[in-house]
């Protein structure tokens, strides 16, 4: 039958319906001209040509585990970081003789997967990420959906999720604490409405949320489990996962952790005959003044060409855009207020994690 929708402006054909106001059209339908809907339009079938699905922004950082500044394979004796921003439970908590994280690229799909291995674990395992509150601004009272891929060996194949939110005092409330909904194809999702405990939204650079993914329900950790393509987004629907570029992801991670590598050179000035003070300028501004190693192997150079190698003791002052560090312990290599340089003989991590 051929007819008109609403104000008779649009010709259409439809199998068995008259459409006015909030409407749905049963059966296969086509619209020859433009279609304007003032109310809701529900389509249960497919739209042809396909309407592009919009992928929402992902709030998680390093969601596909491609950034690994601490190393490609990490053994977790205690709870500690594996891939950037993601912490993994250690054997001191879950028992057994192994808790190891690494990543592997699926040869069929190219998807980068986090792989966690355990041996004879007697307790549950998990990974989690803290989300900085500044990245949640404007999202309180809104629905948010977490989705991810999961599989395991030696477990139930079913994950478990906890979503927590924090207040301005660091107290937290549980927003989700259950098995998520299966989307099929080893993909899982759950939806919450974001709120802060008692409505006290934390300060921007503090913890805002914590996203925890457990393998095998909350039973003892399986021998091996994998997580991939994690996504936390606004709305009640899990939209497709689209990775950011690696460089973009690395910079996001470096707000929380950076490594100044071997041979990195810092310019500074002599503070005494045995110390040189330098400004360590981070690649991106850090979330907070970072923790640094107490000792780093380094070589000092004076302007006259003399050098001194030592396991230098580091003292830092409180800055985030530039970290003022004094390297001490050199052998009479420089004079007060003279120019000197430091060359690292080992990696120097700076840690501003949540």
């Amino acid at each position, binding site marked *: 039958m051929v007819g008109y929708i609403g104000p008779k402006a649009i010709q259409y054909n439809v199998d068995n319906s008259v459409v006015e106001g909030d409407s749905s059209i049963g059966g296969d339908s086509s619209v020859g001209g433009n279609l304007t809907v003032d109310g809701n339009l529900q389509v249960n079938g497919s739209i042809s040509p396909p309407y592009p699905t919009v992928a929402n922004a992902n709030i998680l950082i390093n969601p596909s585990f491609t950034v690994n500044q601490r190393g490609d394979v990490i053994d977790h004796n*205690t*709870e*500690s970081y594996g891939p950037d921003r993601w*912490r993994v439970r*250690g054997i*001191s*908590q879950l028992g057994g003789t192994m808790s190891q994280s690494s990543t592997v690229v699926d040869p069929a799909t190219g998807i980068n997967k986090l792989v966690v291995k355990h041996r004879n674990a007697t307790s549950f395992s*998990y990974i*989690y990420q803290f989300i900085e509150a500044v990245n949640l601004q404007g999202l309180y009272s809104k629905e948010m959906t977490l989705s991810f891929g999961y599989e395991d060996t030696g477990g139930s194949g079913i994950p478990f999720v*906890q979503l*927590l939110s*924090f207040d301005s005092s660091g107290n*937290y409330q549980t927003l989700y604490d259950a098995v998520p909904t299966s989307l099929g194809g080893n993909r899982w999702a759950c939806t919450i409405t974001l709120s802060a405990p008692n409505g006290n939204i934390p300060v921007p*650079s*503090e913890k805002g949320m*914590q996203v*925890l993914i457990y393998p095998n329900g909350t039973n003892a950790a399986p021998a091996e489990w994998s997580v991939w393509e994690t996504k936390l987004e606004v709305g009640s629907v899990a939209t497709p996962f689209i990775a950011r570029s690696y460089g973009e992801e690395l910079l996001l991670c470096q707000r929380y952790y950076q490594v100044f590598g071997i041979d990195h050179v810092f310019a500074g000035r002599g*503070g*005494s005959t045995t*110390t040189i*003070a330098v400004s360590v300028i981070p690649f991106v501004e850090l*979330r*907070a*003044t*970072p*923790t*640094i*190693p*107490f*000792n780093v192997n380094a070589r000092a150079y004076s302007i006259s060409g003399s050098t001194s190698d030592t396991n230098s003791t*580091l*003292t*830092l*002052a*409180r800055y985030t855009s530039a970290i003022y560090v*004094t390297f*001490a312990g050199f052998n009479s290599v420089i004079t007060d207020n003279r120019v000197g340089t430091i060359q690292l003989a080992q990696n120097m991590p700076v*840690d*501003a*994690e*949540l």
Partner: protein
Amino acid sequence: MENETMNITSAMLQATMMPDEEPTSIKATIDGIEMSVPMDPLNRHYKEILRQTEANTLVIQEETP
């Protein structure tokens, strides 16, 4: 499940290299590794040092000359 485990076995104020300047960092042994921890209330290691100090499970030693 918010809490992380952080085993802090020692904490000592670090003298700065500048005379008459108050310490701005703490030498701490955390999970067996010696670190220089800034006295920044946003730093997670410093927050944990304060928490353990308030719980009387850790004492921050005075700086050594």
